[in-house]
Each structure stands twice: as C-alpha cells, then as structure tokens.
C-alpha cells in the first residue's frame, strides 16, 4: 500500500485530506505534518511514496519544503495543495521545482484520488 504524507497547517484540511486519502483503503496516510520543516523530517524518516504539500504555511512554506524534498530524493512524488487558485507563476514554479501536479482548494474527493492514482 502506498504511503501518503499529508502536509498542511490547517487542522481541518489535514483531517479532510487524510480521510479522503485513507478512505478507499488504497493508501496509508502519515502525518499530517503542520509545516515544511516537519514535512522534511517526516520525509527523511518515513520515506512516503507520495507527499501532498500545502503551498502557504507558517515556519516553512511549501515551495521551500519542495526544494528540500527534491534535494533529498529527486524521484519524490509531490503534489502541491493550494488555495492560491492557480496563480500562474507559482503554479509553473512548483512544476519546475519537481511537483508532479497541483490540486486547488476547495478540492473534491474524486479529484484528489484521481491525481494520486495517476502518480
């Protein structure tokens, strides 16, 4: 079963995402990590197959954490989760840094699962 690390500073989004991802029995959820620093630590210790990484977080934001995770593992499968509604530059920047896809908030469960299944 693929392990998915959920990273979001929002308690409600962390819970929602975890329920959606774990709900089908296809994925095991680890976390949620609450910021980029926690995400990097958990990536190193747990080596998840997929990371769902929020863009806008305190302490360390998503793009900075993404850079570090890609430096640790250039094959990391990271999906950015963003309420930034698809700001063009940030969207393409995340892809250039190595993100595999971007999911916009508010998200629908089937959209999240579709993206994860395709990774």
């Amino acid at each position: 079963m693929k392990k998915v690390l959920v990273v979001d500073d929002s308690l409600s989004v962390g819970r929602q995402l975890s329920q959606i991802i774990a709900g089908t029995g296809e994925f095991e959820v680890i976390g949620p990590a609450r910021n980029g620093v926690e995400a990097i630590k958990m990536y190193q210790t747990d080596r998840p197959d997929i990371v769902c990484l929020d863009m806008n977080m305190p302490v360390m934001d998503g793009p900075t954490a993404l850079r570090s995770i890609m430096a640790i593992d250039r094959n990391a499968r990271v999906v950015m989760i963003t309420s930034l509604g698809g700001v063009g530059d940030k969207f393409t920047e995340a892809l250039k840094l190595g993100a595999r896809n971007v999911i916009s908030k508010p998200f629908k469960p089937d959209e999240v699962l579709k993206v994860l299944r395709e990774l």
Partner: protein
Amino acid sequence: MPVKFFGQFLLEKGIVTREALLKAVGPQDSTNLKFGETARSMGLITDADIDRVHDAQRSEDLPFGDMCVKLGILTADQLKEVLAKQKAGHLFIGEALIKTGAINANDLPKYLEAFKADQAPYVIDKVAIPAGVPDAALWEAAADLTYKMLSRVAGFTVRPGQCVLTQHLDANDTVVSIGMTGSVKARYLFSVSTNVRTLIARAMLNTDDVSKEQEDMLNDTVMELANVICGHIEARASQMGKEIEISPPEVLTDGVNGIPVPTGGKGLLFPLHVAEGRIEAGIFLEQV
C-alpha cells in the same frame, strides 16, 4: 472548480501532462517579453534606463511603462507602440501547446469553451468601492470572490450590503486576519458570529454534527475558508497584473473588542447579510 489558469485547467482535466505543459512554458518564457525587454528590443530604452525605472518604482507604485513616461524616457506615443508590440507578440499557453504538439489546433476552441464554462461562476459582478480608494478594481474583485466562495464553499445565501469606509471592524465572536503584501499592503479581515462559524465548520468538515469539535478545529475551518477566499483574491490580482503574497491566516484574539484601522490607513467594510447570523469582511489598507 476555483479560479485558475488555462494551463492548470488542462493539466487537472488530464488533457495535457505536466511534462507537456512545462515544455510549452519554455517558448512562452522566451516569447513573452516584459515591457522593459520589449522596449529595449525596439531600441527605445537602455539597460541604464531600466535600472532607473526599477529604482523609481521602489518609492512609487507605477507600472513600468507609466514610470518610463513620467521619467521622460518614453513619450506617451512610444508607450502605446511598445504595449501594442507586446500584445501582438504574446504567445498564449494554448498556442504554445499547439506549437509543441501537446494539443491539436482543432481541439483548442473546444478546450477554451470548457475552460470558459468552468470559470463562468467566478466572473466578477460590480461591487461599488467608495471614491478615492486605490486599487478599487482589486477590492471589487475581493468582495465579489468573498460572496461567491461563501456561497459555493460554505453554502450560504448571501445578500451583500453596500461597501463603506470604516474606522474599525466591529467586535464579533471569531475574527480571522490574513496579511497581503507586494503590490498592495493590506489586511483581509473576516469576522463571523458563533452560529455562522458552526455552519462553516459543518460545510468545511463535510459533517452535520460538529458539537464535539474543539475550539481550535472550529476556528480553523473559518481560517481555512478565509485562506481559500484570499487565495482566489491573489489569483485574481495576478490576472490584473498585481503580484500579492498572502500570509497564513490567524485568529485575532482581540477580535471580540473590534479591530481599528491602522493609523494613516483606510478601512473598507463589506457587510454580508445572511439569515443564519453575522458575517463581515473588511479590507484594511496600510498608509494610503
């Protein structure tokens, strides 16, 4: 579907792959020159002029071309010429995807139609901003997106009140603040009564019963809703040519006493009438 860009829409729909999109962004980066680069390619300005404009923009918020005219580097007619050349040479992502073979030219109109239909709910209605407020178009969009997200994400039927200038946001049970920096320096405030917070929590957590939820979780759902609203404002600002950064949301512990507009700033209040309780959105601009 939230406010988004055409390339993101195509990726999310599985019409193009991430790799194909990145391949198309390359020609866009090299073709779509900034105003200064276009003017330089036309022989109208030099690198030293560009540095002068950037220096001047640090103390005055003017678009690059307007600053060139103000500094006497370009005439008003030359400004129009550069803008026309920039527009004529612009490579849109759809065209770039055709060029790189990611999509078929015959399919582009169909995809654009689907994208237009997807984004139709986010087209801005007119919200009147009081005279003399800078960036009025952006704050109109902010108000409109607030109404729409409250309706679409949290299920409220909202009747917007008249936007007014204010000196403070009235006390309310939960007040969330999100900072905006970059092209604008402002704070987005979102205040709700306890029963409205409960309804937001139900919608955000997708459950009918939130009676056992802790305060932190209930407040978090209001923060997240405000975060989603501000994310969309940031996206809309970007489409308007303004780059803003939003900070993570926070609940203001002094919200129960009301929030004053910062000294020298301006406060915009957007009352929102809902049957279930009290909601207000405010935008406090710093030192206007």
